[in-house]
């Protein structure tokens, strides 16, 4: 069986790539994409968890959690895309750095 630490390492690296994507990119669309990446990174751990804990009892919590996370990620992206459209209609650009009317 693959040692747990590898899985953890993969997931954490994917997660940090997602975070980097969210922080670095200025375009809203790419932020949504990297968000999606972060959620997928998490999903790997859930699957790994259910796999490693299935020895004693049939532990399928992880897989159910995977389905749940995917659906919620999808709904999130749907709302996100609607906001992208409304932003483009108003600002004609997707650069979120220009969105700083709300400031102290």
């Amino acid at each position, binding site marked *: 069986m693959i040692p*747990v630490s590898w899985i953890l390492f993969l997931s954490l690296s994917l997660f940090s790539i997602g975070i980097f994507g969210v922080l670095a990119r200025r375009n809203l669309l790419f932020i949504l994409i990297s968000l999606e990446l972060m959620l997928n*990174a998490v999903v790997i751990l859930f699957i790994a*968890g259910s796999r*490693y804990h299935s020895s004693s009892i049939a532990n399928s919590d*992880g897989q159910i959690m995977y389905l749940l996370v995917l659906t919620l990620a999808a709904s999130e992206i749907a*709302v996100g895309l609607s906001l992208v459209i409304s932003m483009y209609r*108003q600002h004609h650009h997707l650069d979120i750095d220009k969105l700083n*009317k*709300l400031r*102290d």
Partner: protein
Amino acid sequence: MNVHFYPSFIVMFGALFILIQLCFVRSQFLAYFISGISLLLALLMQLFLQNQTSSTETLFTFNAQTSFISLLLLMIVGLIWAQLYNWLKTLNEHKEEYYLLFLLSTLGGLIMVASNHFSSFFMGLELMSLSFVGLIAYCGHDKKAQEAGIKYLILSAIASAFILMGAAILYLQFGSLSFTALLHITSTQLLPAWAILCAIIFIFTGLFFKLSLVPCHLWVADLFEGAPLVTSAMLATLSKLSVFIVLWRLVTLGNWQQYQLIIDVLSIVAVSSMFIGNCLGLLQKNLLRLIAYSSIAHFGYLLIVLLLINNHSMTFSIQNFNEQIMLFYLVAYLFTLVGVFSIFIQIPKIKTLDELSGLFWQKPFIAITLMLLMLSLAGIPLTLGFMAKFYLVMAAVSQQLWLVLAALVISSIIGMFYYLRVIMALIKTPTDKAKFNHINVDGNALSLNILIIFLVIGFGIFPSSLSQFIQQITG
């Protein structure tokens, strides 16, 4: 089917009815009526369930505390609902969808409050967050609302990602996602010991974002300013209440206090959010941003309660005294906050202190209510806010948390300054007479103000009735 689910069902059916009503006829009154009925029924059902026996399942746990919290939640939502109709009239958008999202976010809150398992918690969290995004970005053509909506969406998505990562690591460690399982660590320990702490930190990041505690507090001021007024009210009360309850449950059930790191993180975050929250509000002119900063500070005070749990010793011979304090503080703070927001709803065109100046001399009743609420937020005696702060100080002193208490004193002194600035603005002699003619206090607004004054001052002077009620619950 467990009887405790009924209030959530009623709210869900309410939302569905509104959906169906949307297909046939678009009338704001009908939507208002349906949501009112469903909330009222849910409230009555919740009242009826108060003295039911508690039952816990894998996903949900229904005991006295959760039923009281959901009762409190429904009451707050009910109070906000009361002013929804008049307020929505001023919006030139479709009105009915607002009620739909309103009910959905309440449903999300109810689920989260009763959740005992990461999946149910996550479902409730996402339901509430997404419906909030809809509520925030409700006014399609308002640039500020759009911007706030985008910010909230991205940030809450990141926060849920962090929470999920923490949950995943815990699941990897313990093999089970339910909160109660965190207590007894099973034999198969896959990850090294410190992995738990990393998981907790991930979860804390997500939760602290939702509670707008210091390191992740930057969004709250922009949201309150940008979002429509009632949405900010919901944000300030509903989302923070339910997230805090989950944080409380995680910390108590998981007994995370045994780790010294968690205690340090909690106390640093508490002290800094008290201090920075109040410092930010010092010279703030915009009313809503002022309330946002004061909510940062108040949740900093509330965090002290989490620090108290460390020894279950019975302080002052009262069982789980700390929980009572937490509940009392939540009740006090949220009622005051709802009061403040209902006042803001009654004075729509007033956004900054200068516009507010001189209100006392033309509309005395609104001004008095706002003054009393400000005094309650500042913690001046004979108000509910003071009583809550007094209980907090009593608990903290009985466990000798001197550093945190010192921070509490300093930050509440700083805080007193900007609450006083609001009162000062109210009593400034107005320049032109006709400044506040556009405000007309109609019947139910007046009755709402009287109810709020009764709650804040009545319970402030005679808190024993409220604290006894809470004592029975946690008893």
